[in-house]
C-alpha cells in the first residue's frame, strides 16, 4: 500500500512501500509496450508539471506518463509564467490548487521546495527533483531497471560515482537501494562528498578502483563544469582520469554488472563512449522504465489501488 498524500523523498518510505510502487509499475510497462498506449484510468484528472529548472527527460517522462493514462497535462515552466514576475511559490501553489490540479509534479533548484508546496495544496505533490535533496522517481526507475535484470535488489552491491555533494540522484539512490537491502558505495573526490554519509548506511570511497571491485551496479553521475569554476575540483581532465568509467575499470566490477546514468551524459568525462554505448549500459531502458514508474505513481496518488486492476 502507498498511503502518503505526496511523494517527497525516499528517505521517508518503507521497503514495502517502495516495492509496492515498483510492483504497480510492472503492468504500466505493459501498457506502454502496446501499439496504442492509452488507458482511460486518469480521464478527467489534471496533472500539472511545474518546472523551475530546465529538464528534458523528467518533464517529458511525466507528461507522457500522464497522457498514456488519459489525464489532462499542463506544463508550466518558471521562465514563461508568473514566477518570472516574482510570484512566490506559496502563491503559485494556491493558484494551481484553485485551478483544480489533482497532481502537481514539481522540479525546483532549491531543496525542500516541494515540501512547501505540499503543505499548501490539497493536490498530490510529486518531487521531480529538488535542489540537492532528492529525486525519488529517478531512483524508482533505477530500482525498477535493476530489478528487471536481477530479479531482486537485496544482496547487490551498488556503486554511485561522482559529485555526491550536489547530487539528489545519489541521495535518493542511497535511501532506495539501502532500504531494499543492497550495499551502497559512494565514490568521488572529498571536495564533492558531503559529511555524515556513514550514518545513511553508505560506504565512502575515494578510489574508484576500490569502489568498483565486485559491484553489481555502477551508477555514474553527471559532473557539472560549473563545479570546477567554483573550485571544487581541479579540472575535467584530471576528474576523468581519477573518476571516469572506462573499460579497464569496469572490468573490476562483476562480469554482468549494469551501468546506469541518470543523464544527460558527459561523454568522455565521467563515462567513456564505449561504456555508454556498450552492453553493460541500460541507459535507454532507464528512460522507458521512467515512464512506467511515473504512471504507477500518478495512478496511486490519484486514488488508484483502491480500485480493481481492471481499471487499467
Amino acid at each position, binding site marked *: 500500500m502507498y498511503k502518503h498524500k505526496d511523494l517527497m523523498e525516499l528517505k521517508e518510505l518503507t521497503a514495502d512501500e517502495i516495492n509496492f510502487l515498483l510492483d504497480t509499475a510492472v503492468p504500466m510497462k505493459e501498457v506502454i509496450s502496446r501499439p496504442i498506449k492509452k488507458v482511460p484510468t486518469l480521464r478527467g484528472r489534471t496533472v500539472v508539471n511545474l518546472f523551475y529548472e530546465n529538464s528534458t527527460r523528467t518533464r517529458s517522462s511525466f507528461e507522457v506518463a500522464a497522457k498514456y493514462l488519459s489525464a489532462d497535462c499542463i506544463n508550466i515552466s518558471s521562465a514563461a509564467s508568473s514566477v518570472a514576475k516574482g510570484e*512566490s511559490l506559496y502563491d503559485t501553489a494556491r493558484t494551481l490548487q484553485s485551478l483544480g490540479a489533482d497532481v502537481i509534479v514539481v522540479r525546483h533548484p532549491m*531543496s525542500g521546495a516541494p515540501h512547501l508546496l505540499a503543505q499548501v495544496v490539497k493536490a498530490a505533490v510529486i518531487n521531480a527533483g529538488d*535542489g540537492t535533496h532528492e529525486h525519488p522517481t529517478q531512483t524508482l526507475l533505477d530500482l525498477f531497471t535493476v530489478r528487471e535484470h536481477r530479479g531482486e535488489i537485496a544482496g547487490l552491491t551498488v556503486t554511485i560515482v561522482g559529485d555526491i555533494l550536489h547530487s539528489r540522484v545519489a541521495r535518493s539512490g542511497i535511501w532506495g537501494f539501502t532500504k531494499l537491502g543492497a550495499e551502497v558505495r559512494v565514490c568521488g573526490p572529498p571536495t564533492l562528498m558531503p*559529511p*555524515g554519509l556513514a550514518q545513511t548506511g553508505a560506504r565512502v570511497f575515494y578510489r574508484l578502483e576500490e569502489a568498483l571491485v565486485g559491484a553489481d551496479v555502477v551508477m555514474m553521475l553527471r559532473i557539472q563544469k560549473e563545479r570546477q569554476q567554483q573550485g571544487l575540483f581541479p579540472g575535467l581532465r584530471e576528474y576523468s582520469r581519477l573518476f571516469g568509467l572506462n573499460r579497464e575499470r569496469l572490468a573490476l566490477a562483476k562480469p554482468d554488472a549494469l551501468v546506469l546514468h541518470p543523464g544527460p551524459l558527459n561523454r568522455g568525462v565521467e563515462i567513456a563512449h564505449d561504456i555508454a554505448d556498450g552492453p553493460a549500459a541500460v541507459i535507454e531502458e532507464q528512460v522507458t522504465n521512467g515512464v512506467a514508474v511515473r504512471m504507477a505513481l500518478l495512478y496511486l496518488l490519484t486514488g488508484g489501488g483502491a480500485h480493481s486492476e481492471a481499471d487499467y
Partner: protein
Amino acid sequence: MKLIIKGGRLVDPASGRDEMTDVYVQDGIICTRFVPDKSTEIVDAAGKLVAPGFIDMHVHLREPGYEAKETIATGTAAAARGGYTGVACMPNTNPVADNRFIIEFIRKRAAEEGRVSVYPIGAITRGSRGEELAELGDMRDAGAVAFSDDGRPVSDAGLMRRAMQYCKMLGAPVISHCEDQTLAAGGVMHEGYNSTILGLKGIPASAEEVMVARDIILAAETGCPLHIAHISTAGSVALVREAKKRGYPVTAEATPQHFTLTDRAVARYNTAAKVNPPLRGEEDVQAVREGLADGTIDVIATDHAPHTFDEKNVEFDLAPFGLVGLETAVGLVWTELVHTGILTPLQVVAKLSQHPARILGLDRGSLAEGSAADITIIDPVFTQTVDPEQFAGKGKNTPFAGRTLQGLPVITLRSGLCIYAA
C-alpha cells in the same frame, strides 16, 4: 512615588546576595527601608525571584528601514514582556547605523516610544561594508555603547585590527559576529549529517572558529575588549576558555537557541529554525551549556531577529536568517538551565543582567542602594506554552512555538514603573 516589593527572593549577583528580603524603591531608585504610607504601592513577590532588570545585548529592532519586521516601539514592548528592561540594538538597519545621526535617531525614537532602555551599537565600518572605518568616536559621543558589523563580519583582518586599536582608545567593546565568509560561502544550516540528507548547503563549524581565533589574537595584541557574539560551536567555546585562561580581554555570549536546539530542528525545511550562526550538533549544544556553567560564556543574549510571515514563508534557501527571542529567552533559560541544575539563579541573573551591563559600561545590572530600579520579577513555577500570536513583537518567527516553558517573567519594572505585568 514609593514602592515595596514584598516577600520575594532577591537575586543580585553584583552584591552576591541571594536571600529573602523586601526591596524598597523611591522615585525610581533602590533605597533603604522606609515605613510605608497610604500612597506606597505594594508588589507581592511571594514565591518569586526579584532580580536586577535583564539586558539583552544583542537585538535587532529593525528601525529605521525595516519597520514591517519590527519597530523600536514593538521591539521594546516585546522586550518588556520578555522581562527585559534594556536592549542593545545592532546597526544593520537601513540606513546602517554607521554615523552619529542614526545613533541619535534611534535614541530619540527610543525616548519617545521605547518601553525599555535602548542602547545603540554602531557599525564598525561604513555601511558595514568592511572597507573603511566608520566614525566610531563620533558615534561613541552620540551614545553608541559598542561597535559591531553584526551579520556582515569584517573579513579584512588588517581593518579589524585597526578597529580594535581605535576602540581600545574609546574604551568601547568590539562585538564580533564570527563567520569566515569563504568557509560559510552560501551555507544555510550547520554542515553535518542533517545538511547532507536535506540537501542544504552547510556552514561548517570552522567558519566560526577560524574567526573566533583571529579576533582573540587581535584582542590580545591590541588590548581592545572583544565580545564574541552568539557562540555556537564546541571549538569556539574552547578557544574562548583558553583566551580567558591567558587573561585576554575577551567575553562571549550564547543564545537560547544554541543551548537548546540542534540542527535537527531544521527537519522538513522549517525556516523558523534558519538562523545564523546555524543550530549546531548535539556536542556543540553540550559544549555551550558547559561554557555557560563554567563561566566561559558570560552573557545570555537573544539575537532577536524578527522577520515577516511572507519573508519566512518561502523556499528554505530564500528565507532570511534569524528568529525572535525576546519573549521566549527567560522561559528557556529557566526551563533548560535553572530547573535542570546547570546554572543557579545567581549565575543566570549575572548572565542576563550584571555581565551585559558591565561589558557595555552601563550603570545597570545591580540592585544596590542608589541604583536605578530596573527590576525583573520571575515566577519560577509559572508555566506557559509558547504561542507566537501572543507576542508583543511583530515577528512570529520562532522555532519554539508550542513548547511549554516553566519559569517566566511576571513583572518588569523600569525606573520603578511597571512596563509589563503578566
